[in-house]
């Protein structure tokens, strides 16, 4: 019986090993120490399995995870990190086997004195979105010190944020609580509550479970805190749509990011990824996406871009953090040693082709990554210091030549968020180089973002692919008038016919 069990478990880990070597070792390393070939490019780094220490668990702080905890991480992945979900890529058996194999990297799993007991979690109290509930949650957000790391408004910009490191001394970001779709352990209110109870082992995020035992707060109040944190993100993760519709408004376009007009305009989310095509490559982009809104008034376009950024760069409090990022995230194999962190600014670029694609079906666009020497792109570039917006032609990442007609730029920073409005005339004199923003056309548009305090500058940036901007035409007056005219004409013709018939009838009678 024992022998059989031994054989079975041996088979499991042998099968698990082959899955591991094929799919996991590239990042997690042959020995499970989180030091695979790709690991040095990643932030957060791949899990080191040798310590038996896991972020996402249902067990108390410092305890081993349950098998179900490990299975969930393998099945669903860890959002916001490089770890994908493996459900659908690997069979049920393969995933179970590899889970068993991963446990062999740490002797703690074989230690029978370790009792792996999942915590008992209560169910969320109702009324989670009510004003009262959120107020209670916010009260505890302040009283238990969440803002120390996560910041006053939850964007990971608290006073302790620039000093944070994980157990392996790698720099670590306090989570941006406005992007729950990137929470490692899931973004539901239940997930958030569990993380508050268990903490995220190996990170600065502690467990708050003792506070219930010591009657500092009640279980219900901890739920309220989770509900408050959940309320900071949109109800559903943002959907990526290809086209930004810019409605035409009456009066002039708003130039301020906080103009009330923006509250009535749809905002579109565009995800950004690290620039990993040209050297120096960048695998740890700080800006995960931008929210975009646009309006026009028939002569001018106003484009509002907002994005989460922990710092108003350059910020001397974050200079050491930027240095740690540069030392942690490897660039290219051939790249020189990391440069010394400088007080780089934050930057945002909006990119268009110089001219709209010709012809009805023509959708050929320049190279998305800042064009090419022979085929430049037209860009607006905004920097936080000096605070200005420029227009120019990019011929690849390295070359940017300004042109005369810069857009007007107005930016505001607060609590971990940039809000920027760029405005420019739809039509400009330099039709050869500056895109002419015609209503009713699909105008290709792309975005780039740099967070100077995360070491981003030059080719170390976050990029998007091409999307589109569409300036909606005002509904032409004809649309309303023609039906009325048609009706009147029909009516008139009908009357004429009827009259004639009546006259004819009258003649016959007479």
């Amino acid at each position, binding site marked *: 019986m024992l022998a059989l069990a031994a054989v079975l478990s041996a088979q499991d880990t042998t099968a698990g090993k082959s899955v591991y070597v094929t799919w996991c070792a590239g990042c997690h390393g042959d020995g499970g120490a989180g030091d695979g070939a790709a690991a040095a490019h990643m932030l957060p780094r791949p899990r080191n399995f040798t*310590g038996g*220490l896991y972020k996402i668990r249902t067990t108390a*702080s*410092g*305890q*081993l995870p349950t098998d179900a905890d490990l299975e969930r991480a393998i099945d669903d992945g860890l959002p916001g990190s490089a770890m994908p979900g493996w459900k659908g890529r690997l069979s049920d058996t393969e995933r179970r086997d590899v889970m068993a194999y991963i446990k062999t990297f740490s002797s*703690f799993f074989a230690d029978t*004195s*370790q009792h792996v007991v999942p915590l008992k979690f209560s169910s969320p109290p109702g009324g989670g979105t009510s004003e009262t509930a959120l107020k209670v949650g916010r009260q505890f957000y302040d*009283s*238990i*010190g969440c803002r*120390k*790391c996560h910041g006053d408004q939850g964007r990971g910009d608290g*006073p*302790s944020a620039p*000093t*944070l*490191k994980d*157990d392996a001394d790698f720099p670590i970001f306090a989570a941006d609580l406005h992007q729950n779709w990137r929470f490692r352990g899931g973004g539901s209110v239940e997930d958030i509550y569990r993380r508050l109870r268990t*903490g995220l*082992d*190996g*990170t*600065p*995020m*502690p*467990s*708050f*479970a*003792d*506070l219930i035992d*010591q009657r*500092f707060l009640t279980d219900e109040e901890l739920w309220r805190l989770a509900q408050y944190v959940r309320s900071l993100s949109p109800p559903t993760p943002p959907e990526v749509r290809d086209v930004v519709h810019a409605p035409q408004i009456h009066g002039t376009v708003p130039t301020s990011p906080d103009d009330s007009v923006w509250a009535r305009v749809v905002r579109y989310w565009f995800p950004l990824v690290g620039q990993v095509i040209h050297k120096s490559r960048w695998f740890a982009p700080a800006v995960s996406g931008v929210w975009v809104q646009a309006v026009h008034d028939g002569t001018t376009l106003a484009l509002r871009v907002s994005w989460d950024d922990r710092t108003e760069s350059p910020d001397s409090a974050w200079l050491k953090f930027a240095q740690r990022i540069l030392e942690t995230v490897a660039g290219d194999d051939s790249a020189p040693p990391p440069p010394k962190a400088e007080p780089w600014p934050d930057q945002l670029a909006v990119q268009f082709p110089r001219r709209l694609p010709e012809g009805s079906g023509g959708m050929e666009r320049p190279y998305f990554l800042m064009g090419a020497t022979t085929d430049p792109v037209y860009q607006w570039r905004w920097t936080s210091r000096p605070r200005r917006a420029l227009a120019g032609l990019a011929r690849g990442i390295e070359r940017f030549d300004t042109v005369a007609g810069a857009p007007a730029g107005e930016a505001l920073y607060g609590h971990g968020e940039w809000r920027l409005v760029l405005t420019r005339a739809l039509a400009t004199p330099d039709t050869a180089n500056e895109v002419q923003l015609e209503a009713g056309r699909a105008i290709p548009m792309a975005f780039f973002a740099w967070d100077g305090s995360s070491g981003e500058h030059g080719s170390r940036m976050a990029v998007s692919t091409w999307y589109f901007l569409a300036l909606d035409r005002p509904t032409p007056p004809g649309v309303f008038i023609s039906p009325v005219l048609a009706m009147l004409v029909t009516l008139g013709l009908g009357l004429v016919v009827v009259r004639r018939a009546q006259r004819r009838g009258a003649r016959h009678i007479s």
Partner: protein
Amino acid sequence: MRKLGAVAVTGAVLALALAAWTRQPPTPGQGGGTIGGKVKFTGAKPAMPKIDMTEEPKCKAKYQGVPTDETVVVNANGTLANVFVYVKSGLPASYTAPAAAGPVALDQDGCRYHPHVLGIQVGQPLAIKNSDGILHNIKAKAKANRPFNISQPTVMTSTKTFDKPEVMVALECNVHGWMHAWLGVLPHPFFAVSGADGSFTLKGLPPGTYSIEAWHEKYGTQTATVTVAGSETKTADFSFAGK
């Protein structure tokens, strides 16, 4: 010859038994040998960085000047404080440690740990107190033991134990990146931390030859071999050099 051999073996067994009997560990503090000494410091005393506590007015108010990091604390008499000195090996196999007397206290006061270096026995409670009344998290980056990371947003005490020997466990607060302390977990009570005069004392040792290790967070470790018999006191001085 055979008889002689038998007598020799019997004698040896008796001698060993007698030795084992006499080596029964005395309770610490009640007889036994003592190893004491000083931890000297030579060379240049490094300047410790100042800690900016502007973000924590409650802590800042507890200092007259600007507090400094405690990685290297050189005493006025030229000795080195915060050196963890302990019996690394040499205890008889039959040795069983006495139950520890009460919990060991670790206080967070003025956004620093008191003491900065401390020892504890396996299974002995560590009472972690927050005297500041502001948020601290206490992370024990244990490797042989299971780690933990708990929060204390108010004046409160949390108790933790460690079930395996481990020299040293790093303790840190992530809210205040400068806060760190070191904890030595041992299966016996023979450990001490050099104090404000640089001295240490290990009392109540069973007779034997011991490997004594002195550990410092920046300067590493040094070992000395010391033999004690009966209730005698032996001296073992250590010396660390600044770089």
